């Protein structure tokens, strides 16, 4: 694997805590003649959450694919984890992706592999981690999403919600620093959805994973935006309603007609007077 030039100490520091991990600057993209994104700009800081809302077909999944380098923008600049990724070759992109995880909208599980092989794919195929450790990590994460007794099944033998949970487990398994969730809770029952939301919150607050969450489920969006994970007096991990400062670390973006129609925190979104937003929220 080709590695980029090592970073100098000052640069490493500038890219540390509180610095941007994803920056989109006037990004535009059209498929054939159809303009999907026009001059989209936003910044995600390390350890923060960006929640992207928008009608079906408004370009939410497209934004995630641009960040992953699966699509290239027609115009604009994209920075991920301190690297400029628009224009990168596929080979250079692989190094950036090493620190990224993505939950695809339809799961995109590999049909030919079992649940355990799917979840452990990155560790097993693209890392030097010993097999026993991979197995342990897979068991751990499958236990967490409640699929321990399905390890040897293939995706075809799972329900839609179970497949989605496997997809989430696969994205989390290699402990990336940036996680992109494309509708992770759609089609899940409320209990499992809350489990997933809790995990997103825990990864963010305990492991300092930055996240971009695309969702239609407003309840989950607000839950993630307004909760935080803390250790209680007994040292146990708890997800509790977040304080004001913490809640400001989650920002909503609303896409409409290829542009950002709203950008702001949960409280601002709730208080909006915009009629389109109101219809969307109700």
């Amino acid at each position, binding site marked *: 694997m080709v590695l980029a030039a090592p970073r100098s100490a000052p640069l490493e520091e500038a890219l540390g805590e509180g610095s941007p991990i994803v920056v989109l600057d006037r990004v535009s993209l059209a498929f054939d003649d159809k303009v999907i994104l026009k001059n989209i700009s936003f910044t995600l800081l390390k350890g923060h959450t960006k929640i992207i809302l928008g009608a079906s077909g408004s370009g939410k999944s497209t934004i995630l694919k641009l960040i992953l380098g*699966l699509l290239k923008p027609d115009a604009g600049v994209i920075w991920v984890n301190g690297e400029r990724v628009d224009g990168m070759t596929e080979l250079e992109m692989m190094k950036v*992706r090493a620190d990224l995880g993505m939950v695809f*909208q339809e799961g995109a599980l590999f*049909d030919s592999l079992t649940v355990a092989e799917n979840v452990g794919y*990155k560790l097993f*195929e*693209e890392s030097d981690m010993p097999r026993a450790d991979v197995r342990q990590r897979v068991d751990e994460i499958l236990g967490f999403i409640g699929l321990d007794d399905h390890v040897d099944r293939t995706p075809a033998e799972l329900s839609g919600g179970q497949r989605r949970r496997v997809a989430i487990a696969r994205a989390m398994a290699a402990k990336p620093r940036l996680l992109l969730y494309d509708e992770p809770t759609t089609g899940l029952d409320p209990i499992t959805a809350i489990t997933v939301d809790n995990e997103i919150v825990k990864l963010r607050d305990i492991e300092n994973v930055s996240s971009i969450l695309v969702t239609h489920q407003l309840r989950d969006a607000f839950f993630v935006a307004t909760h935080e994970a803390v250790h209680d007096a007994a040292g146990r991990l708890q997800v509790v309603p977040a304080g004001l400062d913490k809640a400001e670390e989650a920002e909503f973006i609303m896409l409409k007609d290829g542009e950002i129609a709203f950008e702001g925190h949960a409280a601002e979104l709730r208080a909006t007077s915009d009629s389109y937003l109101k219809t969307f929220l109700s």
Partner: protein
Amino acid sequence: MTALVVSLVKSGLLEIQEYMRLQGQTMRGIVSRPFYFRDVVEQFEEIGIGSLTVVLLTGFFTGAVLALQTGITLDQFGARPFVGRLISASMIKELGPVLTGLMLAGRVGSGIAAELGSMVVTDQINALRALGTDPVRKLVVPRVLAGVFMAPVLTVVANTVGIIGGWLIAVYQLRVASSLYWTSVVEGLFLQDAWMGLIKPFFLGFAIVTIGCHVGLRTHGGTQGVGRSTTNAVVASSVAVIAVDFFVTRVLITLLY
């Protein structure tokens, strides 16, 4: 009208350019790391062992029908005992490679296009890339290696059962003595022919598999697109088998004879 022609030519050229690019990436994937060994083994089994039945059946019946037909023709010259010679020559030089190629185009070309195509439309290819895997190394390289090395092996199998099929007809239908048939088979074999029969399937296997991969990876438009890709892959690789066979034969004749 001209606009239509121009756009057709353009998309044709683009297709060829993409196909060439895939071949370049495949070559690079073969000679450099990472190399997915387990997938290579899996594909050898899938393409090699998996195609055995169909190749055995086609080879056998081709040899048998060849014996029946040439028996009639040879009778006109009173040359029935030479039936073995005709069978071995035509099987090894031409029919073995081409028929095996066509069978592989139907079974392997379509299978690859359908599998890779559905991986494209369900975002599995994107998921591979997101997880840090180059789909060409993981999916294309193992299939190309398996296709290139298994096609000659399967061709030899087809030739062998074809000659056995011919032998059954020669002995039980044409009443040619068994020993006479086998002497005649050996007499019909020239070293050049054997080379010709062994070299051709390498190229045919390469063409079939690379076309299947190329068409599969360029699938778009959901499940309908997968169906379209599968059909296109079979048509294109079948035509390619015949065409590549012609050109390779042309070159080999100058080189070998």
